[in-house]
């Protein structure tokens, strides 16, 4: 940037001197160059692994041999049963999740059953207790012999003359799997449907009520049809999520003998010797195809639904449920109990007790497991430190890059901006398991030799979470009116200075909130880690998984509780910090 003389007498620069600049769309500057470069790098980092997977389909040991992989995969034992299992469980859980999520959304958005503080954090609950931890907690509650809930039920039934050796409930079954899938799908359906409800024209409903339609008639005749696009999008999202879902089935699949696609990919790669790369590549292709189809349909449905929504004209008056209000509240609280409180309590007990036993022996409770995982067990403590470092570094770098890109996309409406936006989101539909396989193929061996390193984990996390990070950063960028940046340019600030001094500080509160989510995702990441983490770089998700299957339930529970406490602290801390930064001044969006 050249400093301008402060005043120029008129005519001091006679004649015309052409200056640098371009005329097609946006001006090309260093800042847009950097944004574009970052977007391209991340796109390549996402595409290269996927191309490696696809190449792996056609090349075996460097020779073109497309038949080999296909016949190998088609010959895998129980292939069709596994695909059928996956499909049935995903679709059934998805349907249940859409119903439950919609009921919750309706209760929270439209009725007086809402519990204000709980409504806001409902979608965040799965972050507090990651799916891996939650599922393990539920296994402790619902396993047929030693599950707490089953013990309680048997204790109630036996005085009534019904004696059971085990059960009656069994988490290691289709029902149990569907239950766990549903728990973790509900936040998505809840979010989509409540957004739909908030956008739909409340006056239509009020019109129906005024015209004499009761609460139920209004619900079925007006409300549900008006959010139909959201319901469709929610259903697709659950399918999309369900195919890639790993943590839940990883815990349950082996014991139950119900084979699931995502689990099988990880198993044949990480837990069988020799690793069956060809099989993993072939199965990844199945998943990619399924996910690609859903993604394609979803973008079409979402596009149409955008078209169909009427943007909130006035807030609907809340519906008074009368006596049913308490029932409504109970439903909301029940979900919180199921998603977080009950599994957390089960883990808490096991962590203090030292092993999986609900004998209510309070005399033996101790902190031994905690001191062991923190100071005694090298793997656990290393995993904790590695994961914290990864999450800290990954979330910070990821959010910073995402902020640059989001700012750039927002301020350049031209073709370049749109291209960057598309490039950065290319990796979004790739399941973490598949990305893990791809990253391993692409960067694990020659010439990079990153296999098992900290670097390959960081790379996989960044690539996997970058699309979501840019979505969060874009929400932050949307809060800052364009004139604030323009005023900076006019004052003589270049792109870089404007970003660092104006955009970034103004986006900061929302970026911090986004950072905390990214941090939590990375802290508990399991899918890609299980494929990529080596013995020298154990990470939390993988370590908990191993402890569970080695039967160290005390250590596992202690580790899980530590992760949960860190998650809550980070989430609360980030939100408090964000609120403090916002406080004392108007929202920058006021411009």
């Amino acid at each position: 940037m050249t400093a301008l003389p402060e005043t120029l007498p008129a005519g001091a620069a006679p004649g015309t001197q052409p200056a640098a600049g371009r005329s097609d769309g946006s001006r090309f500057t260093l800042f847009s160059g950097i944004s574009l470069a970052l977007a391209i790098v991340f796109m390549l980092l996402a595409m290269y692994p996927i191309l490696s997977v696809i190449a792996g389909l056609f090349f075996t040991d460097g020779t073109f041999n497309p038949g080999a992989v296909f016949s190998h995969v088609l010959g895998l034992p129980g292939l069709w049963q596994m695909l059928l299992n996956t499909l049935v469980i995903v679709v059934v859980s998805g349907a249940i999740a859409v119903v439950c999520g919609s009921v919750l959304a309706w209760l929270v958005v439209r009725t007086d059953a809402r519990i204000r503080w709980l409504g806001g954090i409902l979608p965040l609950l799965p972050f507090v207790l990651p799916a891996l931890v939650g599922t393990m907690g539920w296994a402790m509650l619902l396993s047929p012999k030693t599950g707490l809930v089953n013990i309680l039920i048997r204790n109630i039934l036996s005085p009534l003359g019904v004696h059971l050796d085990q059960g009656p409930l069994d988490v290691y079954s289709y029902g149990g799997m569907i239950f766990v899938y549903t728990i973790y799908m509900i936040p998505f359906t809840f979010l989509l449907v409540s957004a739909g409800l908030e956008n739909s024209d409340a006056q239509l409903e009020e019109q129906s009520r005024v015209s004499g339609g009761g609460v139920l008639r209004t619900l079925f005749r007006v409300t549900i049809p008006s959010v139909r696009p959201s319901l469709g999008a929610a259903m697709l999202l659950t399918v999309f999520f369900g195919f890639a879902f790993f943590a839940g089935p990883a815990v349950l699949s082996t014991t139950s003998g119900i084979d699931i696609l995502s689990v099988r990919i990880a198993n044949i790669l990480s837990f069988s010797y020799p690793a069956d790369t060809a099989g993993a590549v072939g199965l990844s292709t199945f998943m990619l195809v399924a996910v690609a189809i859903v993604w394609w349909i979803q973008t079409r449905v979402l596009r149409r639904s955008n078209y169909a929504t009427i943007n909130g004209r006035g807030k609907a008056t809340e519906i008074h449920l009368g006596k049913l209000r308490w029932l409504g509240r109970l439903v909301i609280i029940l979900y919180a109990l199921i998603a977080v409180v009950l599994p957390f309590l089960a883990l808490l007990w096991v962590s203090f007790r030292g092993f999986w036993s609900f004998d209510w022996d309070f005399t033996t409770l101790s902190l031994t497991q905690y001191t062991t995982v923190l100071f005694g067990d090298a793997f656990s403590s290393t995993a904790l430190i590695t994961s914290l470092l990864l999450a800290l570094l990954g979330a910070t770098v990821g959010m910073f890059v995402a902020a640059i890109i989001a700012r750039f996309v927002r301020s350049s409406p031209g073709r370049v901006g749109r291209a960057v936006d598309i490039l950065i989101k290319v990796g979004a539909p790739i399941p973490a398991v598949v990305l893990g396989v791809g990253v391993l193929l692409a960067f694990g061996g020659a010439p990079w030799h990153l296999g098992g390193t900290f670097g390959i984990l960081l790379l996989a996390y960044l690539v996997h979470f970058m699309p979501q990070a840019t979505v969060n950063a874009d929400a932050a960028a949307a809060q800052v009116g364009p004139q604030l940046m323009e005023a900076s340019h006019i004052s003589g600030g270049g792109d870089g200075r404007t970003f660092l001094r104006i955009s970034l500080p103004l986006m900061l509160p929302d970026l911090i909130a986004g950072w905390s989510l990214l941090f939590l995702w990375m802290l508990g990441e399991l899918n890609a880690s299980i494929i990529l983490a080596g013995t020298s770089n154990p990470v939390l998700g993988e370590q908990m998984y191993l402890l569970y299957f080695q039967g160290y339930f005390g250590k596992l529970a202690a580790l899980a509780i530590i992760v949960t406490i860190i998650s809550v602290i980070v989430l609360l801390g980030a939100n408090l910090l964000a609120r403090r930064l916002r406080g004392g001044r108007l929202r920058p969006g006021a411009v």
Partner: protein
Amino acid sequence: MSDQLLVERNSMAAETAQAADAPMVKVSNLVKHFRRADGTTVNAVDDVSIEVMPGQFTVLLGPSGCGKTTLLRCVAGLEHPVGGRVEIRGRTVFDAATKVNLAPEKRGLNMIFQSYALWPHMTVAANIAYPLVCKKVKKSEHAGRVARALEMVGIPELGKQYPSQLSGGQQQRVALARALVSNSDLVLFDEPLSNVDAKVREQLRFELLSMQRELGFAALYVTHDQSEAMELAHSIAVLEKGKVAQSGGPQEIYRKPSSRYVGGFVGTLNEIDGTVRRIDPDGTAVVDTEVGELSAGSVADGVKQGDLVVVSCRPERVELNLVEPNDIANRWQVTVTASVFSGSRTEHVVTFADRDFRLWRSDSVLFETGTAAWVGVATEDLRVLPF
């Protein structure tokens, strides 16, 4: 700002204003389209040429949506025009033909946004110091210059506040201080007074005027308020649907509008339809109308003998009498339909041949509705406009 600098500035402004041959801003044939969401294109700026002279106050005037803001933003470098050319201080900052497009921060101008665009995360002082930081002014000078700028806009005590803690008028003053602190000789304004209430607006307008005359910067000022334009401007460009309908001094625009659009926009216009019988060599015209033959002192460009035209006059230039005013060239009979006292003047509405005329008088005589009266308009106060 130091007195010495002020003196320099004043003399510079005076010189350049008299020299008046090298424009500060020269916009030639500028074109800017927008594509709306439904696919249609809007010609927001359509072949516009204007000039801003050094030290002069130029106002862009026009109704909402006529492209004022877009034109201003093109000059600032915030929009990317598709055609034409912009020169600032003789230097080409935009030229569609040679693909020159200088970034806003390199155009050496300042701008005040309609919404002020103060940065909410910085104190008032930090907001004002920002242009100094960007222009690499020595750090030791910052505090002094910020303080002088705050002094100048009349809020010396507010430096440590955040923008959200200020009233609208105070925020406006901060925006002004931020634009003036770097002593730029060109400041762009986008309806800076439209967000404050009427009293504050008047006060700020007055202060702005004296500041501009004192500091001598060239101003390009957007507004849709014609009285604001008249008060502030050395010259006005009236925009109509992205084109310049007329440009000139405030008096000229008011007294000699080139069209009914311009005349009606800068003030109230009374109109009578007619046909031009002849145009005399001295520029006066004789027009046949429903109240008989009228002689008009001036004729808009392009009007020819035999044309269907509108004869127009301003409300304050019409005489109203109970008896026939024999000494006025154009006079006819009317009926008073309304007569109200509005403080500084009385306003009357009179009817003749299904047509209303409004007229304003400085006396406080009111007429009863239905009173038969005469109006009279001097030849020099009638102007012939294209129909």
